[in-house]
């Protein structure tokens, strides 16, 4: 990346040190094949207390990699006839999984997933916060995000299985870690996702990002490498398998990416690097003066319109 004396200019200067391992696709193909051998065993329980006249809320459970049970909230419209477009909502790092009533009210069958380690999905795996980002980081075969990413893919499978969901109209959306999971899910299931909207994506250019900020969660990497500087190469080797920049070229659906140009949490340089790596129909919105909010105050309407244009709720 840059030296300490260069002023940052993210839009113009955003080289990445991320390298795509030669066996990147094989690594993920193997993992997906392993996951497919595990029965999904979905459960959907109506939650009357959270449901309204307009939206039915259901609590979801399913099985993912390593037999870990994953939780989520599924919301579907009550007063519109199916089929509905499906919308997978993927969560941020410390935020609670979305209970996506608002999206269901707009006509989507919406699923807010809680990947492993989040509340209600943390009984078998619980590295904590801070902790998730560096858990088993020296080994790509056990690194935290191996199962976490597959949990998001399996959530898509749960959505696909719902009879009221139109499988040709499924989108994915999230910001921050949700932005990363949006990219990863669209990349690992390119035929299943009709459109994707990712804000301020995390887990892209990990070490480049950590070198540009002292903000959490990337500060977890800085802390780890202050303690174990000799492990930097091994850390980099693992992270290359989980980097959104390496997933990006696999995406086929239209993708909306939005960035805050002064984002201290997920530095915009890494967002620009992801955008460069995308080979799908793509749109980039940047918001000057914005940080990790990535202009959400205005961008929310753009995301809603983008999803509606492609998914037709």
């Amino acid at each position: 990346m840059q030296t300490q004396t260069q002023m940052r200019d993210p839009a113009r200067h955003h080289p990445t040190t991320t390298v795509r391992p030669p066996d990147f696709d094989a690594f993920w193909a193997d993992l997906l094949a392993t996951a497919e051998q595990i029965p999904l065993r979905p459960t959907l329980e109506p939650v009357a207390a959270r449901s309204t006249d307009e939206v039915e809320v259901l609590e979801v459970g399913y099985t993912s990699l390593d037999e870990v049970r994953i939780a989520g909230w599924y919301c579907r419209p009550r007063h519109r006839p199916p089929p509905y477009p499906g919308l997978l909502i993927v969560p941020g790092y410390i935020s609670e999984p979305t209970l996506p009533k608002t999206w269901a009210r707009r006509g989507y069958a919406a699923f807010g997933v809680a990947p492993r380690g989040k509340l209600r999905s943390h009984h078998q795996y619980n590295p904590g916060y801070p902790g998730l980002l560096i858990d088993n980081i020296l080994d790509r075969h056990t690194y935290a995000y191996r199962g976490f990413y597959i949990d998001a893919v399996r959530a898509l499978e749960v959505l696909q299985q719902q009879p009221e969901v139109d499988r040709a109209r499924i989108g994915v959306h999230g910001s921050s870690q949700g932005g990363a999971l949006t990219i990863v899910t669209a990349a690992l299931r390119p035929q299943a996702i009709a459109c994707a909207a990712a804000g301020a994506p995390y887990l892209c250019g990990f070490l480049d990002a950590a070198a540009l900020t002292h903000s959490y969660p990337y500060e977890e990497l800085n802390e780890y490498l202050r303690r174990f500087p000799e492990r930097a190469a091994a850390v980099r080797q693992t992270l290359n398998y989980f980097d959104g920049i390496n997933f990006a070229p696999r995406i086929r659906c239209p993708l909306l990416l939005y960035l805050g140009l002064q984002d201290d949490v997920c530095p915009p340089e890494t967002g620009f690097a992801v955008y460069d790596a995308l080979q799908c129909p793509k749109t980039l919105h940047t918001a000057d003066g914005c940080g990790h909010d990535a202009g959400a105050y205005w961008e929310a309407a753009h995301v809603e319109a983008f999803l509606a244009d492609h998914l037709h709720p």
Partner: protein
Amino acid sequence: MDDQAAAFDSYWDALDVELARYPMAADLQPLSLHSSGTFQTYSVKLTSIGPYRIFGYFSVPTSVRTPAPALLLTPRYGSVNHIPDYHDRERYVVLQVVHRGQRLADRPFAAAYPGLLTLGITDPGRFIYRAIVADCLRGAEFLLSRPEVDPTRVAIQGDDLALITAARRSGCSALMVSEPLLYRLLERSGGTDAYPAEELNDFLRSQPEQQSAVAETLALFDAARHAPRVQATTLLVNAEADEALRQALGGPVEDYRLTHRGAVDHVWLDGWLAKQLGAEPRARFLEHALSTPEQGEHAP
């Protein structure tokens, strides 16, 4: 004093008495992984009412002279609180309170999200936020007791928990309040289906007969009723239309209207706090890259 005011004072005075029964029994443990050459960060466990052990991240700057200005961060609504920001830990003695039910303070009680906001809400004596306020007050007592803290430069930052804490414990000179959680919750929840406010809508949909009981409980947490006891210089974020709250505050009041450009807003808010505490302002968005791991400069 009318009956309502007397009941309000009685409720909160009783909480103070209950909390005072328990020694804080502070257990500080260094967190070397989360420390640097410029600050030492600790985990801290404290006893609050119940009795219940709560958690906190406590950090002391090592590159500035102590006693140093101090910052109390009240907990957010959600299961996780980050360790305080790096730049704050370099400038201030900082305590991030983690209330009961949140991660690291979730044994034996683990909060549900959604669910926490309405837990016990029909009974002021059992409403979870009574205990959560106690947790924040215990945090304030701990911070104010520390020899590293300059008692003339203490700030509290957070939602209405910050305001209530400043009202109930003297000793802070600055208060920054944004995104209130409980304040005017009944009124605000009517116009949204977004959580956490939707938790209250869910609750009242299934138990509409409890509306008045909920209102009575929330009235005890009304920031405007606590405000007269606040003596600190207070910054109200996005509350310029709330003349009642402004007028009620006992100390000087300033306003900031968010631009919704997060970095711009952060720089302004950080500058305000730094000015109140006599520290240098900082932007979290760095102008220059740090060194990279391969350059070997991540080493201590």
